[in-house]
């Protein structure tokens, strides 16, 4: 897997896990805004999630997941050339998929990538890390130790 793919996976993850409100705020604060054309969607559908037991063995169909996808074309200021942004997001939030696709398009532009990463993606990743940490702390508080039973993997 190339570095570029891994990088894109990182920001797509941040955009897909973000709250729609956070993305909407980031987009309304963004200046100057390029023109946005919808190429496909946003539209909701089903994808079959496939899996392998223990990351080996034969593939099987785990189940269907509701996914919303969008593809947009961005052009005009501040972009040097037209770019294409695509997103697939779990759930049926059309606006979420559209905003994620817009930011993916901005990230495809080499000039703008740095700014999007620091102004949009990094804050999203920070808040997601905080959210996960808070959730883990909550779960940790409900942990029950059974002193009478010795732990096998203490």
């Amino acid at each position, binding site marked *: 897997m190339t570095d570029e793919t891994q990088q894109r996976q990182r920001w797509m993850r941040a955009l897909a896990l973000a709250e729609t409100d956070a993305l909407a705020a980031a987009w309304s604060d963004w200046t100057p805004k390029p023109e946005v*054309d919808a*190429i*496909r969607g946003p*539209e909701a*559908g*089903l*994808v079959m999630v496939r899996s392998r037991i223990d990351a080996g063995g034969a593939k099987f169909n785990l189940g269907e997941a509701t996914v919303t996808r969008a*593809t947009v*074309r961005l052009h005009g200021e501040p972009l040097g050339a037209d770019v294409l942004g695509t997103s697939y997001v779990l759930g049926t939030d059309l606006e979420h998929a559209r905003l994620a696709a817009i930011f993916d398009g901005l990230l495809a532009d080499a000039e703008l990538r740095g700014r999007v990463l620091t102004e949009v993606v990094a804050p999203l990743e920070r808040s997601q890390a905080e959210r996960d940490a808070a959730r883990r702390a909550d779960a940790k508080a409900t942990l029950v130790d059974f002193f009478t039973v010795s732990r096998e993997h203490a």
Partner: protein
Amino acid sequence: MTTTAGRAPARLADSGAAIPNPGFADPTREAQAAFRALLDALAHPTRSYPLAGPAQPPAAFGPGLGAVALTVLDEDSSVWLSTPLAADAETVAWLAFHTGARVVDEPALADFAFARPAELPKLDAFRLGTDEAPHLSATLVLDVAGITHDGAARFTATGPGVNGSVEFDAPWATGIEGFGEQWAANAALFPRGVDLLLVEEGALSALPRTTRLAQASATPLANAKEN
């Protein structure tokens, strides 16, 4: 929403740089309307039905062919494009993005063919189906928009879906060498044979393999009767 990565031939991958135009604004309803027009046209050979295309189709492809492509193609279908269309990166990228169909070089491998009449190979170069599975034959989608011809070919059509017989003008047929004989040979293959879709400006008509054509007098009647 299945991905076709890995199955697409190199030609599609090469055109990855081209950014596709939008397809139908309302994919479900517009494709249903186009499908209805297609069914009606095939049920009533030579009769013309209105067909609305996408707002921004690739320039070389046009709204008519675009509407048919968005309606009938998916990632399981294979498509043969005429040489000018296959050379147009915009068209190939648009089809790949919106339909996922495979573009094939051999007419004999195609489920659907898109071309102007003059660019069409012989009808029997396409897949004709078998007696056991006649539905596996190719459907040829011809872009006949804007083709006019003095002393144009005129045919009398008979067969299922035609009440008695109907005369119709086929200016596009002069672009296909020996169309009358080719079509007679195609009809003789029944139940095998190809079906023709004729896409005009904002309208569509069809010649299914069951329709028999006979050359009519070359001078068009003053008032062509509509079935």
